[in-house]
C-alpha cells in the first residue's frame, strides 16, 4: 500500500514552463538544462528561458514515439557531447519507424557531429512501446532500452530481433567485446538483457553501480528490475499482469531461466523516470528511489531496506502526469510533468 504523508516539509518551483510532454532532461548545472519535448524539439534552457536546439535528425513521431531521452556524456563538461533516443524511420524500406540512439556535439544551441549509433529494426507503424532511457556506467558504456514495439509475441524473446531489450554499447557506439551475445552469430550483438516490455525509467544505483530499470507491464505487471548481463526478464512468457481487458496473457509468473522482478506494482502506476536521491538536500530521503507515476499523477518515493521495498509514499500528489525524474548535479530532484514542464522539489526550512 502506498502512503500519503500527513505532513510535508517540501514544495516545488517551476523551472521550465510550457512543455506538453517533457520526455527527457539532462541537468547541466543549477542554471542550465536540456529538455526534450516528445513532439520533436530539444530545448536548451538557461535561467528558465528555453531555446530550441537546431540540427536534430528527422524524428518520426507516432503514438508513444518521438523524441525521447537526452543524457550528457560522462565527460560533457570537456567535450559537450550529448546522447539522445528517438523514433526515426530512416534507413529502411518498410514504412514506420523504430527507436534509435544518437550522439552529437552541443555548441550553444546547435548540434554538430550528429551520429547514429544504433537503430532498432525493422520499422513498424505500431504506436506502442519505444522505451527509452539512457544511462552510463563507470566503465565507459552507454545503456538504453527499446520496448517491444507492440509485437510482444515476436520481439522480446528473440535475440535476433530488436525490441524488448536493454542494449549496451561503448561510448563511441561500438559493441563491447564482453557483451553477452557477441559469440551468438545470429544475435544482435548490442543486446545486454532481454524479455522487457517497455522500459521508461533507468538509473545507475549509486552504490552498486548496477543499472536499475522500470518498465510498463500489462495491467498489474509494472516492474522494477536490476539489469544483469545476458539475463531474460521473461516478457511475455512470465508476468504478474493481465491484458488491459482483464483476460490472461499467461498463467506463469515464474520460470527457472527467467529473472523475477525486484518489485512489481499492483495496481499499475504507469512508471516513467527513475532516480535515487544521493544528496543530503532532503531530510530522510537519502538513498531512496523515486519513480514518476503517469497514471496516478504523483512522484513515488520508495524506501528499500535489505533488498526489499519497505515503504512507498506519494510525493506532490495531483501534480500531473509525472513523465520523468532525475537528480541534478546540485542534488535536487527535477520532475518532468506533462502539460506543465520541469519542476524542482524544494525543501522548506
Amino acid at each position, binding site marked *: 500500500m502506498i502512503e500519503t504523508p500527513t505532513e510535508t516539509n517540501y514544495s516545488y518551483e517551476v523551472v521550465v514552463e510550457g512543455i*506538453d*510532454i517533457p520526455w527527457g532532461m539532462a541537468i547541466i548545472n543549477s542554471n542550465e538544462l536540456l529538455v526534450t519535448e*516528445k*513532439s520533436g524539439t530539444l530545448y536548451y534552457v538557461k535561467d528558465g528561458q528555453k531555446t530550441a536546439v537546431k540540427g536534430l535528425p528527422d524524428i*518520426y*513521431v*507516432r*503514438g508513444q*514515439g*518521438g523524441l525521447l531521452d537526452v543524457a550528457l556524456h560522462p565527460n560533457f563538461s570537456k567535450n559537450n557531447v550529448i546522447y539522445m533516443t528517438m523514433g526515426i524511420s530512416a534507413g529502411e524500406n518498410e514504412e514506420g519507424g523504430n527507436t534509435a540512439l544518437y550522439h552529437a556535439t552541443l555548441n550553444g544551441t546547435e548540434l554538430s557531429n550528429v551520429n547514429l549509433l544504433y537503430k532498432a529494426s525493422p520499422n513498424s507503424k*505500431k*504506436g*506502442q512501446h519505444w522505451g527509452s532511457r539512457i544511462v552510463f556506467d563507470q566503465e565507459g558504456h552507454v545503456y538504453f532500452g527499446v520496448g517491444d514495439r*507492440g509485437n510482444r509475441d515476436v520481439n522480446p524473446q528473440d535475440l535476433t530481433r530488436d525490441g524488448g531489450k536493454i542494449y549496451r554499447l561503448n561510448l563511441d557506439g561500438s559493441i563491447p567485446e564482453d557483451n553477452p551475445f557477441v559469440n551468438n552469430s545470429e544475435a544482435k550483438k548490442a543486446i545486454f538483457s532481454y524479455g522487457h516490455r517497455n522500459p521508461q525509467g533507468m538509473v545507475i544505483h549509486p552504490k552498486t553501480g548496477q543499472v536499475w530499470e522500470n518498465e510498463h507491464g500489462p495491467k498489474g505487471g509494472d516492474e522494477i528490475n536490476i539489469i544483469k548481463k545476458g539475463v531474460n526478464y521473461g516478457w511475455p512468457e512470465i508476468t504478474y499482469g493481465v491484458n*488491459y*481487458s482483464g483476460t490472461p496473457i499467461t498463467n506463469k509468473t515464474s520460470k527457472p531461466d527467467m529473472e523475477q522482478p525486484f518489485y512489481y506494482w499492483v495496481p499499475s502506476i504507469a512508471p516513467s523516470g527513475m532516480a535515487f536521491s544521493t544528496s543530503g538536500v532532503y531530510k530522510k530521503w537519502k538513498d531512496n528511489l523515486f519513480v514518476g507515476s503517469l497514471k496516478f499523477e504523483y512522484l513515488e518515493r520508495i524506501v528499500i531496506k535489505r533488498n526489499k521495498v519497505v515503504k512507498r509514499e506519494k510525493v506532490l500528489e495531483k501534480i500531473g502526469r509525472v513523465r520523468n525524474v532525475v537528480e541534478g548535479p546540485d542534488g535536487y530532484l527535477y520532475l518532468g510533468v*506533462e*502539460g506543465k514542464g520541469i519542476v524542482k522539489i524544494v525543501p522548506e526550512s
Partner: protein
Amino acid sequence: MRILIPFYLLFLSLLSIALRPQKSKAESIAAGQEIYQDFCVQCHLSNGEGVSGVFPPLKASDYLFEDINRSIKGIKYGLKGEITVNDENYDGVMVSQGLDNEEIADVMNYILNQWGNQSEEFITPQQVAEVSKSTLN
C-alpha cells in the same frame, strides 16, 4: 505519335489514382478499430467512456457530435486546454499521434459508430485533409 506515349502513360497513372476504389464505410470502421486499439484505447478505454475528469468520453459525447471537424482537428494536430464534455470539464493534453489522413478518417468512422454512437456521416481522407490548424472551434 511516339512523343505522346509518355503523356498517355501519365494519364493512365493519374486515372488509376483517381479511380482507386475508396474503402466502404464498413471497411473504414474495421480499419479504424485497429487504429483505436493501438493509439486511443489507453486513455479513452475500450468502452469509449474515458476516465471522468481526466480523459473525456467518446461514447455519447456531445463534444464529438456538436462539431465533428473539431475532433478531427484535435486528432490531427493535438488538443490542449479546457473543454467541456457532457457537462464535465477537462483540462488535459492530447498530443498528435502522427496518424495520416486515411488513418484519422478510419478511426473517426469507428468512433462515430461504436458503443451506441451512430452517425450518417462518412469521414473521408479528403475531408481530413481539408481540416487545417486554423479550422475554427
